[in-house]
């Protein structure tokens, strides 16, 4: 019923507009088309000036409404992101100046130089000097922006610091998996052909390095103030690890691992206080369309103090033992296998 009324209302407005439009055409014939044209000209010139003024007021109002809702006022939650914030502000100022000058010129000229009885258009076909000015100035400013940008770009995409914690992130339809290298600090090899049952990541347990690796789903724990290097994979289609609070993003491409690193500045608890939001949580958003559940592909990052992180890590069981429970020394079922060389306790091969 509501929809019907809306459609009826729309149709009514439409008919009214049409009748006015038709009537105004008759009026213009009666009044003289030239006179109507000039009147329309004046009205539209005024409206363009009004659009400029209200446009700027609107832009200011929009900023008042939404600036606080962005993640920008709190500042970046990663050390590297501070550079991003600064660069964003710099670019905003530079483009903002150009924006104001050109938009004001556009609408002001339109208003000022509207057709009038006593003035004629001024013949001005070209000026090499002017054109050189507005070729070189933008070129210089852009080169400066490129220089600033590339400095940050090479830092952000460069090698992670040597002491970085390594976490392997794997995206799949529709969730995130994380793998930690364990005490040996080396991630075990994977082979997608080994993906079967509980071994959902296709870890190659032939590789001794894989035996102490830890696998968790959905939530990633990392310590604060320590660089974290993510090694990013995808299992099925392209995903993207989007970390809005850390000002980062990197695609997860099947078959082509990528990396990305950052250093978190604040723990989740600190962020809760800073944002005055008890529900605050660092989120991983999938930023590459990956199918019908794309919008629900949410990961959580818990940033905590190093002590808390270590404590958490200690409670995690290596994936090898969660898959092959009988080989877990904690279960004390087959204790004698532990003493054997690793090659003899291999899982059955396909």
């Amino acid at each position, binding site marked *: 019923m509501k929809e019907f009324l809306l459609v009826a209302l729309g149709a009514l407005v439409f008919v009214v507009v049409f009748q006015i439009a038709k009537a105004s*055409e008759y009026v213009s014939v009666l009044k003289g088309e030239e006179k109507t044209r000039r009147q329309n000209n004046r009205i539209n010139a005024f409206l363009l000036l009004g659009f400029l003024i209200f446009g700027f007021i609107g*832009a200011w109002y929009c900023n008042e*409404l939404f600036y606080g809702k962005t993640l920008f006022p709190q500042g970046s939650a990663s050390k590297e992101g501070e550079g991003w914030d600064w660069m964003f502000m710099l670019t905003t100022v530079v483009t903002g100046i150009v924006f104001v000058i050109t938009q004001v010129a556009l609408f002001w000229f339109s208003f000022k130089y509207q057709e009038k009885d006593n003035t004629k258009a001024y013949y001005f076909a070209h000026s090499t000097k002017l054109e050189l000015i507005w070729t070189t100035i933008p070129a210089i400013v*852009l080169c400066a922006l490129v220089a600033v940008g590339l400095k940050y770009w090479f830092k952000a995409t460069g090698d992670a610091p040597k002491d970085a914690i390594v976490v392997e992130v794997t995206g799949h339809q529709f969730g995130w998996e994380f793998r930690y290298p364990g005490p040996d600090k080396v991630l075990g090899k994977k082979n*997608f052909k080994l993906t079967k049952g509980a071994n959902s990541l296709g870890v190659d347990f032939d590789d001794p390095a894989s035996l102490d690796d830890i696998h968790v789903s959905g939530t990633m724990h990392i310590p604060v103030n320590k660089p974290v290097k993510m090694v990013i994979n995808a299992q099925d*289609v392209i995903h993207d690890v989007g970390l809005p609070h850390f000002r980062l993003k990197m695609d997860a491409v*099947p078959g*082509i691992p990528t990396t990305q690193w950052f250093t978190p500045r604040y723990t989740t608890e600190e962020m809760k206080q800073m944002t005055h939001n008890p529900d605050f949580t660092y989120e991983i958003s999938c930023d590459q369309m990956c199918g*019908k559940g794309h919008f629900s592909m949410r990961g959580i990052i818990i940033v905590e103090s190093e002590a808390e992180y270590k404590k958490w890590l200690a409670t995690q069981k290596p994936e090898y033992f969660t898959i092959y429970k009988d080989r877990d020394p904690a279960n004390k079922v087959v204790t004698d296998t532990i003493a054997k060389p690793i090659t003899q306790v291999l899982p059955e091969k396909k």
Partner: protein
Amino acid sequence: MSSVATLHGGDVHAGHDAHHEHHHHETFITKYVFSQDHKMIAKQFLVTGMIWAIIGGLFSVIFRLQLGYPESTFPWLENFLGHWAKGGKLQPEFYYALVTMHGTILVFFVLTAGLSGTFANFLIPLQIGARDMASPMLNMLSYWFFFTASIIMFSSLFVQTGPASGGWTIYPPLSALGDASEGSKIGMDLWLVSMAMFIVSSLLGGLNYISTILNLRTKGMSMTRLPLTVWALFFTAVLGVLSFPVLLSGAILLLFDRNLGTSFFLSDIVVNGKILPNEGGSAILFQHLFWFLGHPEVYIILLPAMGMSSEIISVNSRKPIFGYMAMVGSLFAIAILAFLVWAHHMFVTGLNPFLGSVFVLLTLLIAVPSAIKVFNWLTTLWRGSIRFTPGMLFAIGFVSLFISGGLTGIFLGNSALDLHLHDTYFVIAHFHIVMGVASFFGMFAGIYHWFPKMFGRYLNNTMAYIHFWVTIVGAYLIFWPMHYEGLAGMPRRYYDYSSWESFKQFGGLNEFISFVAMIVFAVQLLFVFNFFYSMYKGRKVTTPNPWGSNTLEWTTPINPGHGNWPGEIPEVYRGAYDYAKDGHEFIPQNTPVGDDETHH
């Protein structure tokens, strides 16, 4: 160039015979359906484009309903969409199909075929002084390939598993694997076949436009006297001819991967618990192939709008376009650079950072010719005697939007900033403003300006002014606040944000945007109504040159027949922009140069 032109493919041998067009018999079929008259083909492109624009716009309204009111249900939707809107709730799978089709339709079918197809066909022969295209037959085929592509794409909306739903960029593996998405089943094959047809259409059209401009210019119409519309359409055609085949190759390889078991784009995939045998392919390779077209495509969409706005701004300011050669040069620079920036869509795919840095530099270089164009438009307005016809308003709106959207390109083109802004609403705001809405404004400007030449009648002014003001205010209301969502990192192509701690604060804004989008869509319907109403009932054009324009199309009769000029094709003696020169308000191109005329 001789003023006697012979048309191939048809039986029209126009020339000295002043009344020739009355002689040959035209049936309904040859005049309106399988027409070889470039003006009729232009109208066919325009009307087909408008139908697609309504469908594509309607899709955006439907998915904006979901975004604006994620908690609500709309039972009436189920009547139209059946199981895709079970219980009045749009299903995620179909939401993605709508998003994908919205992009595909608007980018390719409306702003490529509908825009260049219409105006390249209509304006090139009329403005260069030719009786028709170099090959009217190929021109007709160009439309009918487009029509076939349209039918196939339209039919994909009705297959059981739904149309393609992997985004208009159809990145594999998502688009390659039926197991990964319903939309990647038969709907995706139809998408690819339709695009192949579309590419053929665009190649036939483009080759025709290029050869017509190079070979059929009337006597005296040197390249440096061409109106800027023709220059823009020329570079557009060159871009299309050089870049579309690359997409075709990508589409064919993707079809192979989908149906013949090849591994061009697939490797190391486990989908739905199934281990696929494919190894050695690269999903990123497809992105290179796609964006090698995809980026020039942006300029294929934008350049015609730039050209038409240049022309319309000059005519209605009653002033020469400022810096004609710089305008041509900047079009040329943009066309060249358009081929060298494609990887800026791929900054976060893990590409080599050095390669990325090269693309940053080349991308930001585009801002230089763009800045030249903006400053030249502004200087053209300066000290003019401006007449605000609806076409002129849309051209001014185009410049405003081009500035607003172009400047945010400086953020996104700088790879470091793209690390956070990539694939967020900041990107949506950027490309909708600079490429989507701006090009629509260029297209509207063109329609309002050349409607009198197309149909011998004017569009209704009151409806036109309402159309302009609601559209420009609405466009800014819709897209300006999206920058803030993007700054917060809100990802595009999400069905629902309400469970995200980082993005749910924008729920109210999303509702507002959806509401404005519906109003703007309704006003576009008013335009469509105005278009068809005025075609039959509009005020009649009584003077052959209603805008006081210099270009040749206004030297034809009010309703030109096939062959355009009843007598000889006029000879050209000057450039297209002699406005306000030596005390004359305007001097048409076919006016011989007087002895006392100054040279600038």
